[in-house]
């Protein structure tokens, strides 16, 4: 069965394009949540294998969402990929990846190949 990925980002167009790419190139089953305040509820019902989270969103930012996820016993082990425009790709030295626990931080704009690679790494064999 395909791995399930949840995309949480307020940019509808962006998530739509990312979803299509992840489905096509990664073979994942992808769900979109554009409202960060609904992220926890959606995650609980969708039970994703990985969550891709935008750090800066109106209402609730990625950090808040991540904190909520960590507190949920059913989701705290799910790997999270945070996308942030706040760090420069240059700062994260050449396409590098910052990692802390189950969370991986990727710079925005996201490099699709890099995201696919990271997802492959953090996800269990599909």
């Amino acid at each position, binding site marked *: 069965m395909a791995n399930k990925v949840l995309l949480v980002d307020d940019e509808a167009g962006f998530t*739509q394009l990312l979803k299509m790419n992840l489905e096509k190139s990664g073979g994942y089953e992808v769900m979109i949540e554009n409202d960060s305040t609904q992220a926890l509820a959606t995650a609980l019902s969708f039970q994703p294998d990985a969550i891709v989270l935008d750090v800066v969103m109106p209402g609730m930012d990625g950090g808040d969402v991540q904190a909520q996820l960590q507190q949920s016993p059913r989701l705290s082990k799910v790997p999270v990929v945070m996308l942030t425009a706040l760090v420069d790709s240059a700062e994260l030295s050449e396409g590098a990846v910052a990692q802390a626990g189950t969370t991986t931080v990727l710079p925005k704009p996201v490099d699709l190949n890099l995201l696919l690679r990271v997802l492959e790494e953090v996800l269990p064999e599909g």
Partner: protein
Amino acid sequence: MQKQSLVESVLDNLPVAVFAKDATDDFKFVLWNKKQEEITSLRAVKALGNDDYDLFSEESANYFRSVDKAVLKRGKLLKVPEEIIDTKHRGEVHLRTVKLPVKDEKTGHDLVVGISEDITEQVQSLRQLEHLNKNLVKTNKELADTQMQLIQAEKLESIGRLAAGVAHEVKNPLAMILLGVDYLSRGIDPDDGNVETILTQMREAVERADRIVRGLVDFSSQRALSREPVKLDLVIEEVLLLVRHELTRTTTNVVIDIEDNLPHVFLDMSKFEQVMINLVINAVHAMHDTPRGELLIRGRSERIKDVIKNQGARKFEVFREGDRVVILDIIDNGSGIEKGDVSRLFDPFFTTKATGHGTGLGLSVAKKIVALHGGNLTLENREDGKGARARLILPTEIDTGKVSLVPKLLKEIDT
């Protein structure tokens, strides 16, 4: 010395020059009082018995003669508001003269009697005043130019601070375009229904990036103040495009509440965006320690009478009762304003921000720009004490049009 007759001594003590010429005897001078000696630097003994051609330049003499003839012809008094004579000791002397025809009863000769007042000093001070005035107008113009430069300098500074955020805003559509390219470059199945969606998204992304960049370019351009009727929604939309990153970065929630059918406001888009950006950024800064930042932008239209009533007999110098105005409030739930700072908010360089975080020019420039639009800007704490409210009151009528801008600017500088 000959004993003077009463008439002669009266004439010599008059503060005005008095002279007479005998038209029947080749316009020779027959009267020349003391004051006339003083003004012309010519003694009576030299003048009497001679005519204008003996005493003055030919050009002047021609002129005097033509006036004398006109007086005789008309047979009545003639006023010469200003005439100039060349004198030996005082150079050009300006005179105000009346000339009148008089018949000498004894001899039957026609006389032309002249009475002249020396107005040289008056003329000179008038000239000086005109000169000063010209300088003043020039200085005012320079001040107005300087003010425009100050406004532009402040704008460049906020552009500098916005640029990073705007760059981020452009990154998003660019990322979408990239995702589209990624998808399309990995081979396309002819039946793939996604392709159309992707192309639409890519087109929209290009348009969005273009709009953001163009917004910044338009905003940065320096043009002379030019006002046009503008829909307020449009200004707000443009402003939010430029400050969007500041708002999302700080997870500020923005609520826009603009009354339907708000009348157009008459303003310079780019300058007014500058005002709005300053106010929004100020609000964002004030909400730095607020867990849930809420920014409310509210626009409505009222008659000025109601505004005054609602604001408790406050005076507006720029508006008349009954004027229709647009009131634009920018309300935050930030720190509010310290009591002691209230009177200094609009002072240039007043800032409570750390060095490097604020120059303190924002509000002073914003106020200047709003004044140039014939409007009013205030900033005060919310009545419920939960933050601050910036209020713009803007005229909607076109009759405060372009012509009045410069005088208004000059008046601003005077005070």
